[in-house]
């Protein structure tokens, strides 16, 4: 298994790729499609990015459901499993997401309900209510917490998109446990019909600012290649996506300057 991973990494490192990984452990940063682009996701529409910036939910036009598994550094205890569904309804869409991280000694699960609304032809906004449950081994208490995140997406021109997103902008005094807040802003451009390039800035409570950039290249109608860079841990990322008729498969690989590679795979079903 380890040698297989080395082979894959040897292949992809040539193209430059990366993995920004969550500075804020409570924040969902999309699926493999986004991770492959250096986690540049808040202005690039897609199934998983709709839960990174809920405004993007409004751009979904079909009922879909997806499953995602992320393996951090190939350590089983650091794996995250996520399931989500999107239900479009005219100018708005509703999304549900469930995510689980950890192992028997520590678990963190998140359940979120989101809504995205198209305000005008070029502006969309979205909101998600999150419920977190953290469970430690028997000797410690469990924690429950509720917060919200909100995003705004807009198109300054036909080819340019931009967005802002804020996670947990709630004063710390309202909760018993520490939960970092995160602010993100980014912009992307469609270059020709096959290339999308984007850049994003992100900062979480008490942390330094992270700059990220990513690229997606449509090799054919069904195949996408992705690459990205994040200033956090000087990480590169690579990903690819393939679309069958009603199934989309995405893979990503993200490097960390000290800890190795994180990989992720997802399946998204278009139901209607």
């Amino acid at each position, binding site marked *: 298994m380890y040698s297989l991973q080395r082979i894959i990494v040897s292949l992809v490192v040539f193209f430059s790729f990366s993995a920004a990984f969550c500075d804020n452990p409570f924040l969902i940063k999309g699926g493999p499609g986004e991770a492959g682009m250096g986690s540049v996701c808040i202005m690039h529409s897609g199934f998983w990015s709709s839960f990174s910036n809920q405004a993007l939910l409004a751009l979904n036009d079909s009922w879909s459901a997806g499953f995602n598994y992320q393996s951090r550094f190939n350590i089983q205890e650091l794996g995250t499993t996520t399931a989500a569904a999107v239900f479009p309804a005219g100018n708005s869409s509703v999304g549900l997401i469930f995510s689980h991280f950890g192992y028997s000694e520590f678990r963190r699960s998140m359940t979120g309900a989101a809504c995205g609304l198209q305000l*005008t032809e070029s502006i969309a906004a979205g909101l998600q209510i999150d419920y977190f449950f953290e469970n430690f081994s028997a000797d410690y208490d469990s924690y429950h917490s509720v917060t919200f995140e909100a995003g705004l997406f807009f198109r300054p021109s036909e080819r340019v998109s931009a967005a802002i997103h804020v996670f947990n902008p709630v004063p710390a005094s*309202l909760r018993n446990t520490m939960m970092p807040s995160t602010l993100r802003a980014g912009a992307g451009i469609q270059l020709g019909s096959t290339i999308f390039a984007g850049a994003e800035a992100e900062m979480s*409570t008490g*942390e330094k*600012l992270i700059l990220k950039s990513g690229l997606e290249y449509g090799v054919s109608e069904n195949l996408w290649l992705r690459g990205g860079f994040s200033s956090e841990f000087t990480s590169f990322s690579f990903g690819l996506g393939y679309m069958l008729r009603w199934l989309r498969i995405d893979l990503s690989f993200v490097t960390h300057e000290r800890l190795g590679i994180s990989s992720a795979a997802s399946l998204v079903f278009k139901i209607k």
Partner: protein
Amino acid sequence: MKKNLITILILVFPGCLYCQEKILSGEILNIAEELASDENDQETVNLYLEQLYELRENTVKINSSDETELSRLFFLTAFQIRSLADHITHKGPLESVYEIPLITGFDRAVAEIMAPFIDFSHTFQNDRNRMRCLHTLLANFMISPGENDTTLAGSSFRLLTKYKFTTGRFSGGFTSDKDKGEKMFDFISGNLAFTGSGMVRKIIAGDFSFRSGQGIHINTGIRTGLSLTSAGYMAVRNEIKPYTSAGENNFFRGVAAQMAYKKAGMIIFLSHNNLDATLTANDDSSQYTVTSFQETGIHSTSSELNKKDAVSETVLGASLTYRFRSLNGGITYSGSMFSLPLLPEKSDPEKVFDFDGKTNHILSAHYNSLLNRLLLSGEISVSNFEDIAMVQGITLRPCDRLTLNMLLRNYSPGYTAFHATSPGSSSSGRNEQGILGNFRFEAARHLFISAGCDLSRYPWLRYRTSFPSVAKRMELRFSYNPSENLAADMAFSYRYAMLDEDGGPGMAGIYESENKIFRARISYRISPNLALLTRFDHKMVQPAGDRGMLFLQDITVTLRSVPVSIWFRYCLFSTDSWESRLYAYENDLLYSFSIPALSGKGSVSCLMMKWKFMRRAEMRIKYSVRSVMKDADYFSEKDELKMQMRIWF
């Protein structure tokens, strides 16, 4: 209470998504933050923002073509004022802000700065309107709900009240201010003014401010040349204005008159005012002397109350000006007499050159001359016929796309002018020699590059610097304004200063402090009702190697159905030390401002709502919370609630 407030605000916000507020330009806000970062001169930022609020409330009638009226836009250069007046006189009135960049000497960036402060109405109103009495009443109430300091003399809220009336040529008003911890009506100021168009141009009874020349002799208003890269360094003005600020020290109280006859002008004034000061008794307590003035205007503890109005100052002065063809010149005299002698602690080497005695006489002469594309201006002033201060400036506009400024100053260590606000980097207007140069260049369509450099030398000791020292400031700024909806700017600034090194007893070592700040800001109006601003700051402090970062997002929204606008800010900051702190201007109530120093690791959340109702009233409410991380699981929080009601009839 805090939890309830926050919950209400969080619930209210997502429901309202649209807004249209005249947004202050990035350049204006940069200047405010730069001024706020100067710990030695907090009064200037106060004055600066108050002047902007005043302009916002009482906008400049740009089509008047009257240079005095236009010069209220204090950030414009003499070139620009003259050019604007000429344009309106010869080509007729302006109809919109989009015409301003087409005038010689102006560009889109300057038009953007001006936009919130001008109106395009035609000046000639009918007599009935002019004689109508207009009243404006404003009350600001501010409180920090989480704070309860029982050691203060008064209650913990701040209350500011302003009233103003105008009827025909007469105007007047009062200002009352109670700071946090003070007793009610701690400061009251008022004035009555007459404005004429004949020989008597203005008479003010009560509190007033006065400015002469470049301000090295008298300037109780804002100082010239606020930002290193701003063009307005060469403003030479002689004016008296009613004083409406809440600042409690630097103003005159008495009578002032401004007269003009043909090309000659004259201002005379007499003032008697009480000042806060620290007094010291001599050995047998028979005589008190003033060792220092207290300029904070805060009287919330017994020691501060003891210093309140401890000494009185009587000032009389006169200024004469004459206008030749392209040359304006003038001389000004003022004499200050204190009720108690000033006797600073001369054993402190820093204070060797400080003024002592009861009387200070100052005589100054100033000029400015516009020769085609060259503007020369200067002022020389002498205090007590001993110590000299001088300033000389040159502005050159070789082509429409380039403006160059240079300012030379030399303020001797012993020069004393109690009401001066001199151009340059020092707030005291003494003990400084320096040269400053800057330029502004329109490099391409919509792209502006400006840069400035200021080199200062302090021949004598000063605060926190126990040796003659030097300081440097440099700034490079790129502004890109491709449309009225989008503005982006990036700036890099460098500061060098010599300070005392913290250490043990004995002679202080030299600590060379270097600050490098990078700023990027982009503002975008998505729709007429929705505007965004994103900003990032990075600061590096040497030799400590500390860093500071700031990332903020503003959303300004105007509701469509009701006359309500909402401003929301979320800001995250992370700094390694107090030295690497950063400043971020916050929208606020009128006549109140907030530019907090952000230090540590934390966040700032602000929400402000403005509601205009019944056509004659406006209410603003602002709630802000600042959280700073103390350790991994503990935050210290400070919240503030501000309310404002403004009525006009």
